[in-house]
């Protein structure tokens, strides 16, 4: 039995019953004592391994409450070429990069590029099927947008994925077509992700396993000991099992199975000692603010970005992904089966619709502790937060939108008033909601410290602050990536704080985040990560 004693530095328990203890004792992967050093020592045998923190801070392992680690490996790992605006700043540069890749491609090789961005590539055009055919006549080629929701294909790509004039558009998906019903090459929503599977499959399993190992490593290097696989699909299981079998340092995974129909069997899943389990169901109610398919009460702004790069019509207010009754039937089915629901909602009109539905469902099948989750919640209004609170609905905010796209959100998409309450985490907390924050990897990189910084400063890349009133204090920000995130995945009794009987999942930070300026929180070095009392990563 492995026993460890931690002492010698600030211990931030995130548990109000144990503030500033001297030491923490761990035995057999669980926390057995939190308190004075003497008590902690007494709870262990003489063989316990003593770890002097030497002034560094011990915290509960971080929890990112909405992520896609396996899907991130598929989406971003090699041979996918990263063309996000950070490294490929313009559309012209992006096309140049694609041409150079095509020039060294094997005949028939599947080529995929990730990161086209209507908001951040200033000269962006919609890459047409014809343009891509000209560049790559002999290779299936796909360009995925950085928000993951849309994909541009050439003819070989459409053919390889079986999309032609006669292909019926699945409910909830978009296949853009010309007047003769011929696909233009642009597809969006669920069809994007099923189409991409053809590319991933063509590259084989070894690539994916290696990519997954790299992605998992990124999470633990950032001190994340638990995360979710939102949009889990049954065939994912083998990769997680493989990781556990080979003893990879993989965070605990709460799976949320993707539903696109109401007749799906949600898999019961429980592996290891809380290493992988089925936590609930994920359904998209609407899409991405960055491609225009979210449902709003007030229209988008009208400018070059919205009208040209995003190709929206004046007065555009978007729509739902699915016909409303189809969506409601899905939610009703899985909710009545007792699953926790996590519903992707960005536009305020979408949120109205979902809250109406929750109210009906709770009358039909009352459930005291349903923890119905709304995901991302970009344009949620204050009255909706109040209503959500009354219904027991909780929100997980994709706060990194502000750091990554804050400028365009204010200037090009929604204007200053809506930008000041975009991802309204502060209002939700003021109304008494237990919120979580997420990076939605692969959309943004996994880092709980970056989430904290984003929620505390709401500062965009260009230095502007979007809505000072919505900023969180450091303790609330910390809770939203530890104990409140644990609450949102239904694991607050086992994870999320340094408390007796919980799993011994920790992160050691070089300096104390409670005493660090908000602007510098993301720069704190992660020293070590522990999962079930075992050190799974150390920065040496």
């Amino acid at each position, binding site marked *: 039995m492995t026993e460890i004693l931690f002492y010698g530095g600030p211990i931030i328990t995130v548990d109000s019953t144990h503030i500033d203890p001297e030491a923490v004792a761990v035995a057999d992967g669980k926390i057995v004592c939190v308190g004075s050093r003497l008590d902690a020592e007494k709870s262990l045998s003489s063989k316990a391994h003593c770890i002097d923190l030497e002034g560094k801070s011990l915290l509960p392992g971080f929890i990112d409450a909405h992520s896609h680690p396996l899907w991130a490996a598929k989406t971003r790992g090699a041979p996918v070429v990263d063309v996000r605006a*950070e*490294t*490929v*700043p*313009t559309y*012209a*540069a992006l096309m*140049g*990069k694609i041409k*150079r*890749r095509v020039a*060294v491609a094997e005949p028939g090789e599947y080529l995929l590029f990730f990161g086209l961005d209507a908001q951040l590539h200033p000269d962006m055009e919609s890459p047409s099927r014809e343009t891509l055919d000209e560049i790559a006549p002999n290779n299936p080629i796909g360009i995925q947008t950085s928000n993951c929701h849309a994909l541009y294909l050439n003819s070989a790509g459409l053919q390889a994925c079986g999309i032609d004039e006669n292909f019926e558009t699945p409910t909830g998906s978009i296949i853009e077509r010309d007047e003769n019903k011929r696909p233009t090459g642009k597809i969006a929503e669920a069809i994007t992700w099923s189409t991409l599977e053809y590319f991933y499959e063509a590259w084989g399993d070894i690539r994916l396993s290696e990519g997954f190992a790299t992605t998992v490593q990124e999470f633990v290097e950032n001190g994340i000991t638990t995360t979710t696989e939102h949009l889990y699909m049954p065939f994912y299981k083998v990769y997680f099992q493989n990781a556990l079998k080979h003893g990879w340092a993989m965070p605990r995974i709460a799976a949320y199975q993707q539903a696109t129909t109401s007749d799906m069997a949600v898999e019961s899943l429980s592996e290891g000692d809380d290493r992988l389990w089925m936590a609930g169901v994920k359904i998209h109610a609407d899409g991405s603010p960055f491609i225009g398919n979210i449902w709003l009460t007030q229209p988008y702004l009208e400018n070059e970005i919205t009208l040209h790069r995003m190709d929206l019509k004046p007065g555009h207010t978007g729509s739902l992904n699915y016909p409303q009754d189809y969506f409601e039937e899905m939610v009703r089915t899985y909710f009545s089966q007792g699953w926790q629901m996590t519903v992707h909602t960005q536009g305020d009109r979408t949120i109205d619709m979902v809250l109406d539905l929750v109210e009906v469902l709770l009358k039909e099948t009352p459930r005291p502790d349903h923890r119905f989750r709304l995901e991302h919640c970009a344009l949620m209004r204050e009255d909706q937060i109040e209503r959500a609170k009354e219904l027991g609905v909780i929100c997980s905010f994709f706060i990194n939108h502000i750091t990554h796209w804050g400028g365009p959100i204010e200037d090009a998409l929604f204007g200053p008033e809506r930008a000041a309450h975009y991802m309204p985490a502060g209002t939700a907390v003021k109304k008494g909601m237990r919120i979580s924050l997420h990076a939605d990897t692969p959309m943004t990189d996994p880092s709980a410290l970056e989430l904290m910084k984003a929620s505390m400063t709401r500062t965009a890349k260009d230095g502007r602050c979007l809505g000072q009133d919505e900023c969180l204090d450091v303790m609330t920000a910390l809770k939203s990536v530890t104990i409140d995130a644990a609450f949102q995945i239904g694991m607050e009794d086992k994870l999320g704080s340094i408390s007796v009987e919980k799993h011994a999942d920790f992160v050691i930070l*070089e300096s104390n985040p409670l005493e660090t*300026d908000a*602007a*510098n929180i*993301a*720069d704190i*070095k992660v020293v070590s990560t522990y999962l079930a009392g075992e050190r799974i990563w150390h*920065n*040496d």
Partner: protein
Amino acid sequence: MIKSNSIRLPIITIGGFLGAGKTTLVNSLLSKSEGKRFVVFVNDFGAINIDHALIKTVEQDRISLKNGCVCCSLNEDLVKSISNFSSSKKPPDAVVIEASGVSDPRALDSSFNMLEASGAAFLDTRVYVLDAEGFGGLNYEDSELIVDHAVAADLVLLNKCDLITLEKLNLLKSLISESAPYSNVQETTHCELPIKIILSDNHFLGRKRNVHFSEVINHEEKYTQWSCETDSLIDRDSFLQFVNEFSQYCFRSKGFLRFSDEPDELISFNLVGLRASYEKLGKRPSLSSQLVMIGRREIMNVEVFKTGFNDIQVIC
């Protein structure tokens, strides 16, 4: 939290693959230092620190980062060391970091954030040295890595350009200019270029100049420097537009500005590549607005600048 007993050191980073000419550039900077003192951090893979031995400066100003890549494990040492220099009794004029050939230049960002936040230093110029002769012989992965790294630089030097044909040089130039549209791309031989393009000159703050326009022909005739000064206030919007225009033609500009919407506040202006930054220096109403620009002689049209500079002044 700006430490009162320290000065903010400008940091220059120099990146590039092995053999591109980084050490040559460092030595060139040192030889043209005009009395300025640089502290040089040399980063070298492997146990024998070859680059360290090649840097021509006094021993105590040459710090080698052995057995590691400056982008990851050594960040903390770097931050501590630079902070110490900034608060020392005789701080240097600038810090030069020669990054290892393979490190991702973005990985240094968190160190710079910490240094800027502590008030010890600020990132002045990021230079990337590219071996123009060797580039064509690289495989796809290596050449793309170079392109990605060049994007993160303010100034990209296509070095050893004398060793390839004009046709190849033009192809390379258009490839890099297209891929790194926000960087200045310069052709060099032996990394020869004026030091003022790389290191900003803070020394004219507070000095009253008599001339209102001046043009200094650099010792290398390719480059020219132009400066101007005015007691009038400057219209902020017009200035932003002016910067947009002249940033296409000059490599480097530095200045102090007083805007009409905030007349008491002195603003420090710094243009590196196409990256313009503005920083409030506090209430110093006695100082006039000053601007210095450096650019290539053949494309810098001084008449256009003069007219532009006149147009941005608010007539009281």
